[in-house]
């Protein structure tokens, strides 16, 4: 066992290095004094300052945050409904196809999701006149379709582990079904809703491909700005921005993980 330990540690270090060196170098260079990205010119936080003066970038960031928040909220509502349908109503017409459709975006290439939604929006505009043009609305709809899939999976697993007799007990004590949902089911699955919301928020904030397809003039999201400016050469400003995003995403993922971990622990305690 002990003789294999050095080997294990080496492999572990390589693994971590592979995953994190790019991010670490990005963070390090965001504090670079020099304008040349690859030449270290001393420590500075001036690029963070410059970031604040970059109007288009900030408005794109604000748009992305709004889209992500809206997407996450819609995805949680729809994803929870889909999960309830799949877990609680064991047999209904179209159950199989709902299950496939709901989880399809998990494995579908983003390009195809983006393209198909674009075609749909254009067709809808021609036929029913809504959504008029492409912009924030279409991006939110597009993001919701794939973020919902993740929420469904997370909530579904929580619901499947929930003791059905809890709901029956509430019914038995005189609560009507709607009341049972809000007083019993919702609080019990709440941790998975929070985790799902954070996950959807992160997915939406990150997305470049789908958003590029369904956005219109005046609705440029943060990843789109970053992508187009990087094509003209990486500026340290982008490094600073990326550092902030990495920080936010890490925080969101940690919170989601912590919420799920705590819930898991409580489940184990309840099981005894």
């Amino acid at each position, binding site marked *: 066992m002990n003789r294999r330990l050095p080997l294990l540690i080496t492999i572990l270090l390589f693994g971590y290095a592979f995953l994190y060196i790019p991010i670490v170098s990005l963070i390090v260079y965001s504090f670079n004094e020099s304008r040349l990205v690859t030449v270290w010119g001393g420590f500075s936080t001036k690029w963070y300052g410059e970031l604040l003066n970059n109007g288009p970038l900030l408005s794109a960031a604000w748009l992305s945050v709004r889209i992500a928040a809206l997407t996450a909220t819609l995805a949680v509502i729809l994803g929870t409904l889909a999960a309830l349908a799949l877990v609680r109503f064991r047999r209904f017409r179209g159950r199989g196809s709902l299950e496939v459709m709901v989880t399809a975006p998990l494995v579908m290439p983003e390009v195809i999701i983006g393209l198909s939604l674009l075609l749909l929006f254009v067709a809808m505009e021609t036929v029913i006149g809504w959504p008029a043009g492409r912009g924030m609305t279409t991006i939110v709809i597009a993001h919701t379709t794939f973020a919902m899939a993740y929420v469904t999976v997370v909530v579904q697993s929580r619901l499947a582990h929930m*003791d059905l*007799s*809890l709901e*029956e*007990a*509430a*019914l*038995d*004590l*005189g*609560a*009507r079904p709607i*009341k049972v949902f809000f*007083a*019993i089911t919702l*609080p*019990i699955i709440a941790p998975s809703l929070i985790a799902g919301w954070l996950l959807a928020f992160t997915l939406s904030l990150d997305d470049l491909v789908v958003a590029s397809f369904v956005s219109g003039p005046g609705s440029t999201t943060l990843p789109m700005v970053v992508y187009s400016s990087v094509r003209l050469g990486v500026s340290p400003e982008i490094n600073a921005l990326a550092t902030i995003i990495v920080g936010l995403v890490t925080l969101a993922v940690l919170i989601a993980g912590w919420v799920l971990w705590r819930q898991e622990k*409580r489940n184990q*305690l*309840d099981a*005894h």
Partner: protein
Amino acid sequence: MASVRQFKPEEPWQAPEGEPIVRIENVTKRFGSFYAVDDVSLHIHQGEFFSLLGSSGCGKTTLLRMLAGFETPTSGRIFIDGQDVTDIPPYERPVNMMFQSYALFPHMNVADNIAFGLKQEGMAKAERQERVAEMMALVQIDKLAQRKPHQLSGGQRQRVALARALAKHPKILLLDEPLGALDKKLREQTQFELVNIQERLGITFIVVTHDQEEAMTMSSRIALMHEGRIEQVDPPRRLYEFPSTRYAASFIGSVNLFEGYVVQQDDDQVLVQCDEAGGQLLVRHSQPLVPGMEVTLALRPEKVRVISHLDADAPNQLRGVIKEIAYLGDVSIYHVELASGKRVQFTQSNVQALAEQPLTWDEEVLLGWSANSCGVLTE
């Protein structure tokens, strides 16, 4: 098997004029082609501690869930206190249930769990708090009001579940394996408490259990179920002493069964030819039987005695050889092989066994029992 219940002179199921609090009429529940409950009719009276007893899959839980309203009968009607509740949803029925898993709401503390039902009926806060305190005192968990369910032991959870189900003062309390999750010691102690609480409140209890000892100890009456049907409904003592079917006889306690046919019947004495026993057996049976009819005799092991010598006048004497002895502490079980190869079980308390000369393996013994000791089963 001892009953802790004081037998009261009035036995409500004997009174023909009394309206039963639960009337189950020809209820059938089918899942696909499987009959979980098959044409069951049952009357349960106010103040009874009624047990539905049977092995798993016999339909007892389905029947209980139909009383609670979680399942709808495929056919038949259910009346509670004169009202047809067959199509009434669970949240409008005057019954409450204690779940096998206890189903305590994990995000609420003990007091909120108990108050949940009262809140639903819109009881004022002061009255509600008073009722919750009263319930917690009843089940002796006064100090746990602020605890969350995951901070409680199994026994404490069971009490909270009981208090929550009793809080609304239901007309009927349904209990699904109420003691199933407790260890043996705690279970015995809780049996007595359940009976005390039930007698104090006068609420009708309907209990589902697979544990015959539990049912025998607590119940005023037991309905023994088998494959969706009711085999027998009787007070514990009657169910044990006078099982009416072969299944009932073998489910409750252990029993020796002898196959035979009726030779003749004088008054209330029946003579049965039984080849397994190597002769004719005499039993007391008052219902008229036709000679030649095939019957089964049921004999409890503790009613068999070892006798010292053949008595020409006494009936029911068999000779055999002891093949197995199982020592259980208070009693020992002996398996005796008859000349026909049939094995007969009998038990003897070890106090008695020590006083007399001890029985041992391969010893030839003479067994005897009185005509009153045997039951006659025709089904």
